[in-house]
């Protein structure tokens, strides 16, 4: 007895979304805007992720890059590294994809109310953080200072340059940038993102630090945050794992005993220590 599809709710059936714009943001990175065909919103929080499907190729988790304050559409910034992301890069406006989600806990933005937010981005870690940054920017009066530290591998690999320039001149946003390897045009700081910590002055008991970047970066960023006096409960990071199902079943995203797709991807350093998530960073 095969039940009629409409009688059943499948955890694995994506909703159909249409690509409404594509913008090239760097060599291997594009920013896609999507609209659901049923006209509904994604209804996400900053820091959550979706599972994107290109049927015939596969499905993979991608962090949401737009703030929920952006109404109607949502955006995903995507680096072409695997089958699905490469296939997505070959699509243009008007094409459709499958979307499941939003999944995960997201950044605890409610706790940030009235507090200073220190964002530390490494490479394409800026993509998920963009959802948070624009959320703070769009609700400016609810938060204290917004400090962004952004590190790129080379001056040519700076992500979301237009957006960085927009934030740079925005009132109430302090943006500091660094690159590992400069070029003739780069007149700014050179070195890993942690070098920028010496250039900022913060009130630790009033600050939430939020970081996303390559796994190797976290240990160093946490160290700098601690040196600044930020308590471990307020040092937050998003952990990248292979969230295959997104619904807490497949086991791929497990870090020690936790399922990143259910309890993460955002974890405080305090949680990582308390639950002995030795595999986390």
């Amino acid at each position, binding site marked *: 007895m095969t039940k009629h599809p409409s009688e059943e709710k499948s955890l694995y059936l994506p909703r159909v979304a249409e690509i409404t714009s594509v913008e090239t943001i760097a060599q291997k990175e594009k920013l896609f805007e999507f609209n659901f065909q049923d006209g509904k919103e994604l209804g996400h929080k900053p820091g959550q992720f979706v599972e994107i499907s290109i049927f*015939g*190729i596969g499905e993979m988790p991608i962090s949401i890059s737009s703030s929920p304050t952006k109404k109607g559409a949502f955006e995903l910034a995507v680096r072409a590294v*695997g*089958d699905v992301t*490469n*296939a997505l890069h*070959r699509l243009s406006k008007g094409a459709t994809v499958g979307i499941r989600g939003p999944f995960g806990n997201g950044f605890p933005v409610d706790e940030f109310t009235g507090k200073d937010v220190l964002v530390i981005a490494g490479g394409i870690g800026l993509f998920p953080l963009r959802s948070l940054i624009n959320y703070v920017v769009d609700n400016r009066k609810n938060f204290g200072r917004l400090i962004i530290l952004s590190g790129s591998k080379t001056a040519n690999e700076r992500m979301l340059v237009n957006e960085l320039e927009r934030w740079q001149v925005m009132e109430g946003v302090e943006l500091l940038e660094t690159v590992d390897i400069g070029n003739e045009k780069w007149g700014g700081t050179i070195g890993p993102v942690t070098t920028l910590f010496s250039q900022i002055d913060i009130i630790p008991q009033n600050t939430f630090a939020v970081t996303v970047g390559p796994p190797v970066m976290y240990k160093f960023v946490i160290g700098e945050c601690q040196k600044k006096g930020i308590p471990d409960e307020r040092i937050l990071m998003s952990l990248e794992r292979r969230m295959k199902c997104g619904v807490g079943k497949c086991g791929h995203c497990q870090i020690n005993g936790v399922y990143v797709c259910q309890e993460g991807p955002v974890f405080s350093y305090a949680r990582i220590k308390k639950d002995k998530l030795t595999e986390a960073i």
Partner: protein
Amino acid sequence: MKPKVGFFDFTSCEGCQLEVLNFEGELVELLKLVDIVNFREAMTEKSDNYDIAFIEGAITTEAGINRLKKIRERAAVLIAMGTCACLGGINCLKNFRTMEENLKIVYGDAAHYYNTIPARPVDAVVAVDYYLPGCPMDKDEFIALVKALLLNKKARLPNYPVCVECKLAGNVCVFEKGETCLGPVTRAGCKAICVTNGRHCWGCRGLVDDPNIDSEKEILQKHGLTTADILERFRHFNGYLEVSK
């Protein structure tokens, strides 16, 4: 535009090409997707204009090296098809004798008319984009690779040993039956066809990326094989690899 495909044989039994002709139902479907322009075992016409080259067989002559390099220059995608092409395979058994000995054994008094070099897999000569290991290569893997190429998707071979597929097939372990097996270090993808049919694994698909050879050898010894037996077992298909030396 349908991609143009060529099949080229080097030193082998040509069983993998034969396998393609055995596809029956799928062959008709495949021909809707690609144009075969070079296939000695199946057609007389030939063309040097192709996008995808399937290479069968190991490389065992200087002439073969030159011919293979020319094919590589012409093909956008080059695929090593079958154990001989992927690993050198059975042909590498001759590498454990001098080439003079080999010529003498095969050609006797006429040995001086011929020349041969140690057998080697295709990737010892040119870059290989994809591998279809197995003696013969696996039909499903072949079709999956063609589909992946047409979809612009990376085809990947399993990176786990035959044991995975053997267990899932519900087989009684070869070792439990008092025999020995290379399944624990051999790359899966064959659905454990040999064990399922009452044999054991000879390692025709080559080793997984990071095989635990020490442990496998220890287990083989515990089950009665001598060091010489073990070496012989590995040399059967994997003579080109370090493990057989």
